[in-house]
């Protein structure tokens, strides 16, 4: 299976306006290529998995190797001695297990697509009106909406990454960085989240796997017993060494798999998710009035709803084409979580914001200086420690005041940060001038006289309140990127 290959977009130089011919080349893209979550796609978007798939391959190997050994070493003997139905039933079980496993692993669990920028803006406006707060730039307290479902009050949480209010029973998977409907859990064994759309496959996988492990375990034991009756126990083990391995694997698997099947049977019959059960959302321990509002009342209907209910189509339309005028998906507030093919795009988003905020800060600082030194522009003051602007922007979040004596902080931002406490005690802080401190990489020596004078000028501006406000705002913006 080929992995999706993506090439980083060159953010330097050419802008979309400058070179229309480049736009023509990179035209037809499918939506999976610009998907903002941390998923891997194969077969041109038909297959969707989580990022970490190592354990999934382990599951595959365990099942295939154990079954293979069973068919190779135990079945010939058992087919002859007892009945040929044994390998047939075994074959059907293995086929069913593999089918449901692949179906669980490869399908969309019910990912909710992220809000478009217009939607997000509209929601933010509504929330601001509700909260009465107007200041932006920092993260406001968690937003919740309460809704009454079947007599129970349910809190809907706002997802900062996806910029939506999560529907009831949905949850955000931090591993896949997606909101998933009816989120059960993220299963590393199947390499995917288990949610609304693939829960029935997951359940049938663990159910059939429990039957398979019990089946193999039972018949391996039978095989060894029959052989030992003929030629003694030790000889039996020598004749069929694979049986030992199979027995060990099955013995340890049986407890966990059968236990898990039992647990999920309970969850299905009470129409709960693993998430809800672990949190005790509908537990009677929370209160006498606490009950599950999603349960249909009887076990049979709950089971039917979970296993035979209607299948929703995927909401993310992986194989659709990206329209040319589609607005860019809302980039997550935590830039560190961006992976996959949208890394370059989100980097551009974050970088644009970053560049804007930095320019704002530097302009605010440099405005009085422009009268004296017209050469001071934001381009001439390279951000220290970074030779290029393409580094992830979260490393530039310097919202907190840092001691001036630490070397990496010798830059325009920290000087301004120190301005805030400087207002009170100007004398206590000691600045390392560029001459004293070893210059960090990327800081050209030619600029040091400029920064030196910049430092001196900046110190003189401590008393200017409006500049102070501007730079604080700029810094706050920077830290929010």
């Amino acid at each position: 299976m080929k992995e999706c290959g993506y090439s980083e977009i060159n953010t330097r130089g050419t802008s979309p306006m400058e070179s229309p011919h480049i736009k023509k080349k990179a035209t037809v893209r499918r939506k999976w290529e610009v998907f903002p979550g941390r998923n891997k796609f194969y077969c041109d978007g038909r297959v969707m998995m989580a990022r970490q798939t190592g354990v999934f391959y382990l599951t595959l190997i365990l099942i295939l190797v154990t079954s293979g050994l069973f068919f190779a070493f135990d079945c010939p003997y058992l087919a002859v001695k007892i009945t040929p139905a044994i390998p047939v039933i075994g074959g059907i079980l293995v086929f069913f297990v593999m089918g449901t496993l692949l179906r669980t692993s490869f399908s969309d669990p019910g990912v909710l697509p992220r809000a478009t920028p217009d939607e997000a803006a509209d929601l933010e406006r509504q929330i601001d009106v509700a909260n009465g707060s107007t200041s932006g730039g920092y993260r406001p307290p968690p937003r919740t909406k309460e809704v009454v479902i079947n007599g129970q009050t349910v809190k809907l949480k706002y997802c900062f990454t996806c910029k939506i209010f999560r529907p009831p029973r949905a949850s955000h998977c931090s591993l896949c960085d997606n909101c998933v409907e009816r989120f059960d859990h993220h299963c590393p064994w199947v390499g995917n989240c288990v949610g609304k759309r693939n829960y029935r496959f997951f359940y049938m996988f663990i159910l059939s796997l429990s039957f398979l492990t019990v089946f193999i375990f039972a018949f391996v034991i039978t095989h060894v017993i029959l052989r030992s009756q003929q030629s003694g126990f030790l000889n039996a083990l020598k004749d069929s060494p694979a049986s030992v391995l199979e027995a060990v694997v099955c013995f340890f698997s049986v407890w966990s798999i059968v236990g898990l099947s039992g647990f999920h049977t309970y969850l299905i019959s009470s129409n709960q998710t693993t998430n809800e059960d672990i949190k005790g959302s509908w537990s009677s321990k929370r209160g006498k009035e606490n009950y599950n509002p999603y349960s249909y009342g009887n076990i049979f209907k709950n089971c039917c709803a979970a296993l035979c209910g209607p299948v929703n189509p995927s909401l993310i339309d992986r194989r659709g084409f990206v329209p040319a005028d589609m607005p860019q998906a809302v980039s997550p507030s935590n830039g560190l979580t961006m992976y996959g093919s949208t890394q370059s795009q989100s980097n551009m988003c974050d970088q644009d914001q970053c560049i804007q905020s930095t320019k704002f800060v530097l302009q605010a600082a440099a405005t009085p200086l422009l009268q004296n030194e017209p050469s001071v522009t934001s381009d001439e003051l390279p951000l220290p420690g970074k030779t290029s602007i393409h580094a992830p922007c979260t490393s530039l979040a310097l919202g907190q005041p840092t001691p001036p004596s630490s070397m990496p902080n010798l830059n325009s931002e920290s000087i301004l940060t120190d301005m805030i406490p400087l207002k009170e005690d100007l004398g206590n802080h000691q600045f390392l001038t560029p001459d004293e401190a070893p210059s960090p990489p990327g800081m050209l020596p030619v600029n040091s006289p400029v920064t030196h004078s910049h430092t001196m000028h900046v110190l003189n501006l401590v008393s200017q309140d409006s500049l102070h406000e501007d730079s604080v705002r700029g810094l706050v913006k920077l830290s929010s990127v």
Partner: protein
Amino acid sequence: MRPQAAVAGKVFIQRDYTNGTLCQFQTKFPSELENRIDRQQFEETVRTLNNMYAEAEKLGGPSYLEGCLACFTAYTIFLCMETHYEKVLKKIAKYIQEQNEKMYAPQGLLLTDPIERGLRVIEITIYEDRSLTGR
């Protein structure tokens, strides 16, 4: 329809979760549409959409049958036929297009199919209506 018309704003009809996780939209009339469309017509549209989504997700004989049949064929049957849900989604798309042509476009509005927004919202785009400015 109106390629040259400027977008004056967008209204988002949010989901209504009072009946659980079923796909239902709020029938509350947004204030931005006061001058554009009749309240009754709007509520009728949203109510019809809600009914259609409820039909798609309905649990009953036919859906169980479809589920069981699919299970026995290892879900390969969906390579040949559409699920009930997909059929209803097509009906919904046609209905929305019809509503747009008959009622909303003449008033300078455009309904976006909720499936294109992940069934989160019904997006109504409000276009600048130059004919109204003459009054």
